[in-house]
Every structure is written in structure tokens, then in C-alpha cells.
């Protein structure tokens, strides 16, 4: 037994060395597990182009079935109900948008739809989009400024109060949208500057056809807008401005897509059919893939699942690191956690590497402790600013911090006592029930702070929203998604006035920096501001970032051009290129 363990360690070490050699020590985004193979062998080096096969080498026709893990209850992905990752993967094959997030986590212009998008003035902030003249909906109606206006009016929270939009941010700062050049030139003027402007009308909130909306009501009235909005949610689309269009929809079973004959993009789909099969239990996906009932899966990686996928002959898989990051939060409303020394000690005693080793490290050797609250590696502006002792698991240092602050009874089996003589009672650490990885995480944290004389009581929750909203926790482990809109994202998470600031963090200096960054028109300066604010946040020991969650794609080896995209765009971001290798 010992020998095989040693062998395993040696193997891991060897692989790790290889990885370091391969990517020159850079921990860049889009990096994945070294165990990738087959068609995904080059994904680490070329996350944006791996498994690429030129159209001439693809077979004409064929069917690919892609597993999505949720049903599609609502077809309007800009609405709060429809804005869910899995259904959006399917629906976005039908819609045009401005900016795409590529697998390396960069935002690039969607050249299928746009010729250009430029910021032409900073005061007032003005963006000019040039739509390609060829870009049309599948009924021949051109894609124009009208579609932008419809989106703006339904999502700004003012023109259509009944439209339950997934987000208002940015749209509510737009002053006007005017079309010229037959609507193919769109000029957007902001009332207050919005640093995340690239995120508007982008892949996260794509465009819906305004001319079809107009059939549902008068788009100059709130009622008309809402009628159209609700209609888009309830109706299976026949319209399409993307590479595919809907052939049929079986609720809860599958969405069958066929190429859109009016598709204006350079790359025309080669497939006859693309099927989005609803499989709500991820554990069933590897078996279905092995049995060739689906050809591409994109589940949440788990140790057995990854190994199962690796073992299937004729199937390749690749892991990337995504925008979702796990973190340990402290509730500052707790009278004991209000003291910074105790918070510092907890963060120093937490051994993030050990947590990784016992959880995601089991199937992905590339996951490392995350050292930023503001960006993930690969995103522009990423900087490691976390103090090195946080997350180090250095018990001695943690004890020293407590001793210096005047705490007593610092030791295993003792009950930590504050400088003014109060015993620290057991604190509740919470996580979502059923999440095995977080369960292990909190059990490890419990064990790691025990030598400080600090006892944690593990209390799972089955209603994370309720728990965070009501602040019903002392410590909690969950995940945030780093959306491409970094600046408004940061405001939502950390501002003292934000509803998502569950742990009641309040630092006026941080508030000022975040607000300044979000309204800046100079992206470089804004990113620096975010990192500075993050450094202050880290010093205050409020939230300890743990790691970036991996994502995994697995596909049968004849599938070409489908690759992992760990961003919110998902692997279907280039769905028009998907096809089957001709030789097979």
C-alpha cells in the first residue's frame, strides 16, 4: 500500500513538473488538468484553438448530441427566470450579441455580427457599434439599432417596470441609443460612465428581435414592452439570428436544432442536427457518453466522474479553470468575529493547499490557492495581492497573532478567551447540504482552527439564499462567479450598501475606490483601483478566497471544434464551427 501511494505521489510530481515545463510556470487562465488527452491534447497550450479542424476536413452533415443539465423553462435569457447557465447554452445558438468571452477568458468582438465597437468619446461616454450589413434575422429582417433599443428599454428598469430583467446594471446608465445608416450604426450615449460597457448586449444578455417584439404590442408603452418580453419567455423560438434555429422542442427531453439557412456568419454549420439533450443528473452523463447516447458533456467535475470519463475508450476530456471561485466568509455581525485579530488568526490557520489536496486536487493538479477577490487568473487585471500568510495554515503564526492581541487559552481542547475575558463560544460554519466538496472543506477548516482553541460547529443549510440573505451564519463556504463585468460585479459583492454584502463589510475607503472604478472610462486605471481595494479588503480579513473551480468537457473523438470554455459563454460559444471529423 505504502509503495503504491509513493508511486502515485511520484507520478503526480512528475506530471506537475511536466506541466510547469509546458507552460513556463505561468498559472494563466484556461490551464487545465495535465491528464487531458486525445483531441484535447493541445488545449493547455492553445485554449482558443485546440481540437480545431478546418471546415474542409469535416464531414458534411451528421448529428451531435450535447447534454445540458437543466430544462429550458423560459426562453428569454435576459429575464431573471431565464438567466440560467445551462438553458442559455442552448438558446444562445439562436441569438446575436456584441462581445464573446473566449476560452482564455478574454472578451473579443463578435465578428459574425459586428464590424466594430468603439468608445468614441469619454464625456459623455459614447460607444458606436457598426453592425455587419449581412446580419439578418432568419425572416430576412436586418439586425439593427431597433434590437438594441428594445433590449435597453426592457432592461433599464424604467421603461418597462414589469419586465423582470436579470440585471439592470449598465442599461440603467444609458442616456440614449440612436440608429443611423439604416440602423446598422448604433450610437449609445451614457448618462454616467460605465466601465463594463463591453458587457452590454454581449453574450451574457444577447439581442432579441425587436420586429417580432413589435407584433406583441406597442413598444413605446410599458404594456407593449412587457407583452413582448413575456412572449419571448413563453414561446419556443422560430426566429433566429444565430447559426442554428429550432426544429423541435420536447419539454424536459431535448431541443433539436438545425442550421439557420439565413445565417450570415463566415463559418456555416456543417451539422445536419445539433441536439441539446436534457440530463438533469450529472452522474448519468458518463454512462450515456460511453453508450454513445450523447457525444459531448459539460458536467461539474467530481473525482469519480473525471476518472470515469478518462477511462472511456474513444472519448477525450479537458479541464479548465473557470470564473467561479470558492471562498470562506466571516460574518462581521458576530461580536467575536468583529475583532480583526481573531479573523486574521482564522485566515492564517486555514490551510488552503490542504483543502485543495483533499478535494478538487484529487482530479485536477493545477488548482492552486486563489490570491485575489477581484479577478481570476487569465482575466485582464489579475494580480496576486493576498498577504502570503493568509491561507498558509501556519498555526504558530496564528497563535502568535492571538497572543499579541491579548487572547488566552490558545490551544487544542481549550476554549479561546478574548482579551476582556469572555470565552469564544463554538461558531457555526455553514455550507450547502449535499455538496461533498464543501463538506470536506468545512470539516478540514474545523480541524485546522481547533489548535487555536476555537471550536466550529458544522451546520449544513439547504437554503443558501435564505442563509446568506438573513446573515444566519458565523462562517460560511460558498462560491461567487466572476462575471466579465468586473467593476459592477465588485460593487455588488463588496459595497457596504449592497444587498449581496452578506457579512456586513464596511470600509468607506473601499466603497470609494469601487465606485470610482465602476464609473471610470479608463479601464487600466479602473483595474488598478480594484486591486488596491482588494488589498485593503484582504488586510481586513473579511473573505478568504480558496480556489478557482475547474470545469470539464468530454467529447467523443470524432467531434471537432467543440472545446472547453470556462467562462459563462460555455463550450457552445463557437457552435457554428462544430462538426464531425470526416475520416471517421
Amino acid at each position, binding site marked *: *500500500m505504502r509503495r*503504491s501511494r509513493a508511486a502515485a505521489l511520484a507520478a503526480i510530481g512528475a506530471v506537475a513538473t511536466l506541466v510547469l515545463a509546458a507552460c513556463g510556470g505561468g498559472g494563466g487562465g484556461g490551464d487545465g488538468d495535465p491528464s487531458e488527452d486525445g483531441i484535447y491534447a493541445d488545449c493547455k497550450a492553445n485554449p482558443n484553438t485546440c481540437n480545431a479542424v478546418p471546415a474542409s476536413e469535416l464531414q458534411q452533415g451528421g448529428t451531435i448530441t450535447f447534454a445540458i443539465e437543466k430544462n429550458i423553462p423560459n426562453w428569454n435569457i435576459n429575464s431573471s427566470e431565464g438567466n440560467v447557465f445551462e438553458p442559455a447554452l442552448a438558446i444562445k445558438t439562436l441569438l446575436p450579441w456584441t462581445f464573446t468571452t473566449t476560452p482564455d477568458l478574454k472578451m473579443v468582438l463578435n465578428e459574425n455580427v459586428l464590424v466594430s465597437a468603439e468608445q468614441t468619446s469619454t464625456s459623455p461616454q459614447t460607444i458606436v457599434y457598426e453592425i455587419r450589413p449581412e446580419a439578418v434575422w432568419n425572416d430576412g429582417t436586418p439586425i439593427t439599432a431597433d434590437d438594441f433599443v428594445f433590449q435597453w428599454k426592457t432592461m433599464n428598469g424604467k421603461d418597462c417596470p414589469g419586465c423582470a430583467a436579470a440585471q439592470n446594471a449598465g442599461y440603467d446608465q444609458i442616456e440614449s441609443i440612436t440608429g443611423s445608416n439604416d440602423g446598422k450604426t448604433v450610437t449609445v450615449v451614457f448618462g454616467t460612465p460605465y466601465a463594463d460597457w463591453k458587457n452590454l448586449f454581449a453574450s451574457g444578455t444577447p439581442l432579441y428581435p425587436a420586429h417580432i417584439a413589435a407584433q406583441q404590442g406597442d413598444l413605446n408603452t410599458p404594456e407593449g414592452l412587457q407583452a413582448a418580453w413575456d412572449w419571448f419567455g413563453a414561446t419556443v423560438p422560430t426566429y433566429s439570428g444565430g447559426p442554428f434555429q429550432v426544429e423541435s422542442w420536447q419539454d424536459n427531453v431535448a431541443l433539436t436544432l438545425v442550421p439557420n439557412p439565413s445565417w450570415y456568419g463566415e463559418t456555416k454549420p456543417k451539422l445536419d442536427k445539433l441536439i441539446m439533450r436534457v440530463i438533469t443528473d450529472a452522474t448519468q452523463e458518463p454512462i450515456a457518453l460511453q453508450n454513445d447516447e450523447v457525444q459531448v458533456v459539460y458536467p461539474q467535475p467530481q*473525482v469519480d466522474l473525471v476518472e470515469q470519463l478518462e477511462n472511456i475508450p474513444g472519448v477525450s476530456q479537458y479541464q479548465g479553470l473557470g470564473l467561479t471561485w470558492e471562498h470562506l466568509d466571516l460574518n462581521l455581525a458576530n461580536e467575536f468575529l468583529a475583532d480583526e485579530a481573531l479573523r486574521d488568526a482564522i485566515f492564517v490557520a486555514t490551510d488552503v493547499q490542504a483543502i485543495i*489536496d*483533499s478535494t478538487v486536487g484529487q482530479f485536477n493538479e493545477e488548482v492552486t490557492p486563489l490570491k485575489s477577490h477581484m479577478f481570476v487568473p487569465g482575466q485582464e487585471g489579475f494580480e496576486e495581492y493576498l498577504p502570503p500568510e493568509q491561507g498558509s495554515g501556519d498555526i504558530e503564526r496564528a497563535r502568535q497573532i492571538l497572543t499579541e492581541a491579548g487572547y488566552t487559552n490558545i490551544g487544542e481542547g481549550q476554549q479561546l478567551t478574548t482579551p476582556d475575558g469572555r470565552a469564544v463560544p463554538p461558531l457555526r460554519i455553514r455550507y450547502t*447540504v449535499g455538496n461533498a466538496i464543501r463538506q*470536506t472543506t468545512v*470539516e*478540514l477548516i474545523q480541524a485546522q482552527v481547533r489548535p487555536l482553541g476555537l471550536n466550529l460547529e458544522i451546520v*449544513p443549510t439547504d437554503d443558501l439564499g435564505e442563509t446568506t440573505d438573513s446573515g444566519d451564519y458565523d462562517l460560511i463556504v460558498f462560491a461567487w462567479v466572476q462575471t466579465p463585468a468586473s467593476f459592477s460585479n465588485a460593487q455588488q459583492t463588496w459595497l457596504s450598501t449592497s444587498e449581496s454584502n452578506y457579512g456586513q463589510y464596511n470600509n468607506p475607503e473601499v466603497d470609494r475606490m469601487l465606485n470610482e472604478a465602476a464609473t471610470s472610462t479608463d479601464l487600466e486605471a479602473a483595474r488598478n483601483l480594484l486591486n488596491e481595494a482588494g488589498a485593503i479588503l484582504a488586510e481586513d480579513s473579511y473573505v478568504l478566497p480558496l480556489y478557482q473551480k475547474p470545469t470539464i468537457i468530454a467529447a467523443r473523438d470524432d467531434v471537432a471544434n467543440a472545446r472547453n470554455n470556462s467562462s459563462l459563454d460555455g463550450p457552445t460559444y463557437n457552435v457554428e464551427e462544430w462538426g464531425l471529423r470526416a475520416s471517421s
Partner: protein
Amino acid sequence: MPESPVTAPEAGSRAPEREFTVAERSQFQLVLRRFLQHRLAVGSLVVLLFLVLLAYVGGALWQYDFGEFTPDKSDPPSFDHPFGTDAAGKDQFAQVLRGTQISLQIAVLVALFSTIVGTVWGSVAGYFGGAVDTILMRISDLILTLPLLAVAAMLAHNFGGSWWLISLVIAGLYWAYVSRVARGVVLSLREKEFIEAARALGASDARIIFRHLVPNALGAIIVNATVLVALAILLETALSYLGFGVRPPDTSLGILVSEAQTALTTRPWLFYFPGLFIILIALTINFIGDGLRDALDPQQTKVRA
């Protein structure tokens, strides 16, 4: 719930009350002797007792605690870890023993609670008949229409999933089945001569129910209780699989086996060992119940048609 063929023990053979103790012992000896002849049942009893001992005594003595992290992660079975370890390095043997404890506790609590409540309920209904019977049995019917899974899931949602809560939820729905069985047996006994005799001697209703009816229905009820134990273990497993079972940091065989559902081809030791324990427990209990049934029912003899 699969109804088991329950037959009342031969009630007419019972002696008058004065010789009660003597008659009881001889009946008991008779049953015991018949039970011991049922080799499969006796073997099952031995295996089950061994499992119980292993879970409680073995679990306490074993070198690893069920919550302890060892440095060996995802190790296959070895001398050090007979059932291997999971991804976080927990010893699976300790986990399975702990799971067995909790699963057994759930099963026994379910059997006890639903048998006691159901027997009293059904006996009272069957004995008094009329309006009492109608009201009590309609309440039983009401419980039977409540979908066990849905209610258990919602209750677990509300109050968290400690093992005794799960058992109370299951028992709170199972007693209705028992009450039906008990009522049926009591109905058939009610008109028997020895009950009439007791009534003629002036025995109170309570005395008749608890001294005469219940002891005579006991055979059928005990057999039924063994079936309940097996069913409760399987139901707990199903609930855990669907995500409504016992919650960490507690564990159970159901939790272990459903957490390992993807491990069949990759880390089979995590999949098979807890499953094997569930099967062993349910199987042995069913065999014991079968042996008891045969032993309590002197009518069933070998036939040639």
C-alpha cells in the same frame, strides 16, 4: 409497502387464563423449536448479531474514527484500510460501521414506534368496531394517501435531517400500515370463544385488548415488524439517494452508497461495501421474519398435492 402474508397464530389452542404462564411457555418453546429448525433463519440471526456487534463494538475499537482524515486518499482496500479510503482520506471501514449504526438505529426506531402505535390503534379500532373503528381507520387511510417520499422530503427540508427525525418521519407514516394488519387480526379474534369467555367473566375492555387480543396478535405483528426493519433501511437509502436523508456530519449506509454511485468503475470499494452491508442487513432480517412466520404458524406443513 409489500404486504406480507400474515397469518394469526393458532389462537384456539390457548388454554384458559388460569394456566396462562404454563401454556405460554410451552407455546414459546414450541415456537423456538420450530424457529431453530429453520436453518436459514438461525444462520441469518447469527450473521445479523455479528453485524450489530461489529458496528457498535468494532466501531468503537477500530483504529480510525469515522470523522478522521487519514493521509491516504482514495486508497483501495488494504490491511490498514480493509474497505479502502475516500477522496478526502476517510477510512471507509470506519464510515461503513458508523453508517451501519445509524441505519440500524433508524430501522429499529421505525419498527418500534410504528409497531406500538399501529398495534394499539388497530386493536382498538378492531375491538370496538362501529364509529370508533370508522374514525380511527379513516385517519389511517388519510396517512396512507400521504405520499411517503414527498412528506419525508418536505419534513427533512424543514427540520434538518438528524437520524431520529428521519426515523420519526418514516414511522409516522408506517404505523398506518401496521394498524391495518393489527385490525385485521383483531377482527378475526374478536369473535373467538376465549374472548367471549373473558367478557362473560367481566373483564374490562382494556384488559381484553391488552391481555388477550394483543398477545394473540403478537405473532403476526412481530413478523410484520421484521419486515418493517428491512423496509426502513431501504427507504432511508432511497431518501438519501434523492437527497432527503440523514445529513452530514452524520452518515448512514444510504448516504455512503449514494455518494459512491459514480464510483462503480473507478473506486469500486466505495460502491460495493456499503451496498453489501445494506443487502446483508435487509436479507438477514427478512429471513429471520420468514423463520418466525413459519414457526408461529403451525398450519404450514409440508404438502403433496
